[in-house]
């Protein structure tokens, strides 16, 4: 408890505070100003980064729901004796280093990468496709890839809990498959769905590795923060970007937390 206060609340508070300072010659100055916060909303690059990031996060979340739902449904309701094995197969990518896995995508998608060289080799293409890496497309693909298990696992745990007799009763009463899905399965899976949406959206908003590794120069909040703390050497600007991001994340959490139980998911 004490640890959390000292090293969790403290750091977050200090981030909001440092964002009001200025940095000159790599030293923080005691000049308090709201300039950096204002810059987050008025600076064209920052604004574009926030718009890009939010768009990509929404797109990724929607894609993840579409991809994960039938997948989780199949494992949870039709997995049978293989259910545990399938679940471990989902967990493995979930807990293996994500830099390594995104690097895997880098060598698949690169202009001389595996996909292009294979398509050229078998004669489908003459020229490598260039839009599959270092574009918004590759960010979208990478984010969907990375956070997919965070959508699958919560969905799985709520789909698995649904009582089969409810579904059978609905069929007996003459409900169509679509009706059973809309009236029974979907409503009962809401907690898992919301949990997955929270994770995927928040993690996509705060993504750094994907846009930095396979996102080319696309403006993204995560990479701008990384830059401010790295080569850019402007901590207060980075802190201001981080603070606004944090507020968005907290807002999303606050508004969706009531529909789910995060503790039940793992």
């Amino acid at each position, binding site marked *: 408890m004490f640890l959390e206060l000292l090293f969790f609340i403290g750091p977050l508070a200090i981030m909001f505070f440092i964002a009001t300072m200025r940095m000159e010659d790599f030293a923080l100055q005691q000049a308090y100003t709201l300039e950096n916060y204002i810059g987050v909303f008025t600076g064209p690059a920052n604004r574009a980064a926030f718009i890009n990031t939010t768009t990509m996060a929404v797109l990724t979340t929607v894609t993840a729901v579409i991809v994960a739902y039938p997948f989780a449904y199949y494992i949870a309701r039709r997995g049978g004796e293989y259910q545990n094995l399938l679940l471990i197969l989902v967990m493995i990518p979930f807990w293996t280093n994500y830099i*390594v896995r995104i690097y895997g995508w880098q*060598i698949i998608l690169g202009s001389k990468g595996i996909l292009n060289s294979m398509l050229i080799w078998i004669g489908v293409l003459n020229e490598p496709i260039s839009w599959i890496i270092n574009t918004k497309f590759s960010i979208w693909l990478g984010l969907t890839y990375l956070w997919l298990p965070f959508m699958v696992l919560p969905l799985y745990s709520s789909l698995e809990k649904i009582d089969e007799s409810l579904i059978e009763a609905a069929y007996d009463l003459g409900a169509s498959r679509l009706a059973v899905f809309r009236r029974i399965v979907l409503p009962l899976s809401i907690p898992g769905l919301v949990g997955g949406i929270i994770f995927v959206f928040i993690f996509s908003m705060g993504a750094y590795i994907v846009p930095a590794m396979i996102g080319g120069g696309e403006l993204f909040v995560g990479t701008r923060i990384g830059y401010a703390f790295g080569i850019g050497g402007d901590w207060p600007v980075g802190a201001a970007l*981080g603070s606004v991001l944090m507020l968005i994340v907290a807002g999303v959490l606050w508004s969706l937390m009531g529909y789910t139980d995060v*503790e039940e998911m*793992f």
Partner: protein
Amino acid sequence: MSTKTSETNAGSETVTNSIGSILAVAERYWLPIWTVLVFTFLYAPIAVLILFSFEKGTFSSVPWDGFTMQWYAEMVSDTRLIRATMNSLYVGTVVTFGATTLGTLGAIALVRADFRGKGFYRALVVAPMTIPGLILGIALLLWFNFLNINTSLVTVMIGQLVFVTPFVLITVSARLRGFDPELEEAARDLGASKWQTYRRVTLPILMPGIVSGALFAFTLSFDDFLIAFFTSGVQNTLPIYIWSKVQHGTDPVINAISTMVLLFSIGLIVASELIRRR
């Protein structure tokens, strides 16, 4: 329909039938097919890394240039890599011990005891899990700077402890909620002291949860990049080393390193799952 000639009628019927049967097959099998496709997507980069860590050519591309173990030989002789790996193992071990102890005690407090502000405490415990690592990383960097603490492997450990502990706590408390408190009461009735009850009843029952939580903690620490990246100062952990190598473009040695990291993590998670499901 009946006014048409029998010939065209038969022809269109076959077409309708075959489209119908394709749709019927699709409707029946789309779920398993979809599942296989998603698994392919999840494992594509992993398979590619493992496969091309044995390829002779310096570019990971098709066609295959031949089998080699050269990249693994280069990997083993890389002293900076070995130092980074040792650092990661060291940090991982300390964080695992710390997080497992704190997480287990926290879980017992949260499930068994009733105290004021329990709801707040609960929210506080879950919060670090849902905050992007990037925000936590920079916030910790600013915090250590503010407290005049030089960043090193020690600050990495503290930072990781903050976000790893909740995962252990949740794993253990799930196990704790699953078992009957009457077992503890029975032990007390039979004359066991409070400490004996903990040692002989509570702990053994919690053990699978604690062990899988510990393996969980180790994996999280071992894979963490963002917190280590911002709070490690000049010292490298393995993910930071891999990151710095990836920045210099593709290199088949990275494939070999990645393969080893993957196999290590897979081993840990499989062990953790086997213990948890026991």
